[in-house]
């Protein structure tokens, strides 16, 4: 059995020797699930094992209307290793008066990407309260990671052209309604797909690649809700070319999240 270099390293338990960027992670107080490990140090240890060089993190509290607490904790978390740990800006979308201040506070901490999560308030992504977040993100030409589970796509579709400077990254792409994710990514140049899905169904990465979306796929783990070590295997052992794996694991994220070519 012939293996590519990434498969060979994974089968030996060695860190991957290519650029790996995790586009989707969480940390801090306020996790829905009880966790085994929830520190910056545990993230870095995990990243060292897999070879992941950078991780983009949103704070749990910032996704459930406690962004002020999230900002305090994120300042300390990112300070542990600012070269490798990057924060997502969040805002309490249900509390309109706080949104502008919180967006700016995240930006002032040096965060250069935004995360929104529909279950933070129950408000659909088409609700007017989100307009301020979209406008801020668009103004600063930042990427936005969006929690999706299929049904939210219809609320997002009106935003893509309205805010052309946002790179919309649809989280958990293909967890259901995979054809709809493909349609969005194909139709709109500023829409991208993020891969994390703990159920790890067979063949989903290959499906997106077959649909011509290799340049629009970003690898994410959902660490520490879920396990980065599992999620990376979905790409490493996908039956796709080595070049496609490099793009999905890191090169696309470097372009979209770090605004640099890798």
């Amino acid at each position, binding site marked *: 059995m012939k293996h590519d270099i990434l498969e060979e390293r994974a*089968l*030996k338990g060695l860190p991957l020797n290519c650029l790996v960027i995790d586009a989707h992670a969480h940390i801090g107080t306020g996790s829905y699930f009880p966790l085994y490990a929830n520190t910056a140090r545990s993230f870095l240890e995990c990243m060292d*094992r897999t070879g992941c060089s950078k991780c983009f993190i949103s704070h749990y509290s910032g996704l459930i209307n406690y962004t002020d607490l999230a900002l305090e904790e994120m300042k300390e978390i990112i300070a542990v290793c600012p070269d490798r740990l990057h924060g997502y800006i969040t805002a309490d979308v249900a509390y309109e008066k706080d949104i502008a201040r919180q967006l700016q506070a995240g930006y002032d901490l040096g965060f250069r990407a935004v995360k929104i999560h529909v279950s933070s308030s129950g408000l659909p992504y088409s609700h007017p309260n989100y307009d301020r977040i979209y406008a801020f993100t668009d103004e600063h030409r930042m990427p936005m990671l969006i929690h999706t589970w299929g049904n939210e796509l219809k609320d997002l579709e009106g935003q893509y052209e309205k805010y052309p400077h946002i790179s919309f990254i649809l989280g958990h792409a293909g967890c259901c309604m995979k054809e709809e994710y493909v349609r969005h990514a194909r139709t709109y140049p500023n829409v991208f797909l993020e891969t994390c899905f703990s*159920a790890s169904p*067979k063949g989903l990465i290959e499906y997106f690649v077959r649909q011509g979306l290799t340049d629009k796929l970003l690898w994410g783990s959902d660490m520490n809700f879920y396990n980065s070590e599992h999620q990376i*295997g979905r790409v490493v052992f996908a039956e796709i070319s080595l070049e496609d794996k490099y793009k999905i694991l890191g090169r696309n994220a470097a372009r979209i999240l770090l605004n640099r070519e890798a």
Partner: protein
Amino acid sequence: MKNELLVERLFACDAVIGRPQVPFPGPEPVLEDLRRRFERFPIERALVRSAAGNYALHDLANQTLIRHLAGQDAYEGVYQIDPLDVPEHFARIRQYRMRSVSLKPNNSYRPFCLFPWCCGDLYKMLEEKKIPLLLEWGSTVPNELHEAMTAFPGLRVIMLSIPRSGRQCMVEALMRQHKELYLCLHTRFSVFGGYPALCREFGSHRFVWGCGYPETEEGSAVTGLFYSGLDQASLEAVAHGNIERLLSEVEL
């Protein structure tokens, strides 16, 4: 390839072949497909159940499994059992040389529960013969299992498909109280830091490994184990050693 693998070999404990109720996209999960998928890693050994077992149809499950797995011995069939006619079941287990059984409780077609008053004769036989019982968490009522393992402390249970949403209070409580309860660490048990934490608390001898064939990505299960940070002895135990020991102790 063998010498380049992190562990000596991989033994998957949760494979299923045969026709699922709703066909999967892609190849049908038969022996040829399983072999092709497993050769990539390579996963050398497996315990294999029949998809017909999902309907709790033990006669169909066992018949189809025997046919599917004929002519090879790397992939070992799991006998689908129910609480009725235990002596007849055991005779067939011996005849087929199957060293593990699975049970589908709380199903609508052949309803039974795991309480000892319902399955006591079966547990007695499995305990005496040291035959591991494979159960899916989704069809297991935790309190029923607790009563069963309290009444039959030597009963060896391998729990499959434990949930993936963080730490599991009930699973951990059962593990603390029942020393012959084993967990299958599988593709979907994707809980950050879970493998080392569980092995520290309960000992790595309490865990086996699975890759969710045919539903989930084997590669995800492989990296989940290989990058877990477990020491080499624990990796070998989980990857193959524990299940090999359990099967070797079966007395048919």
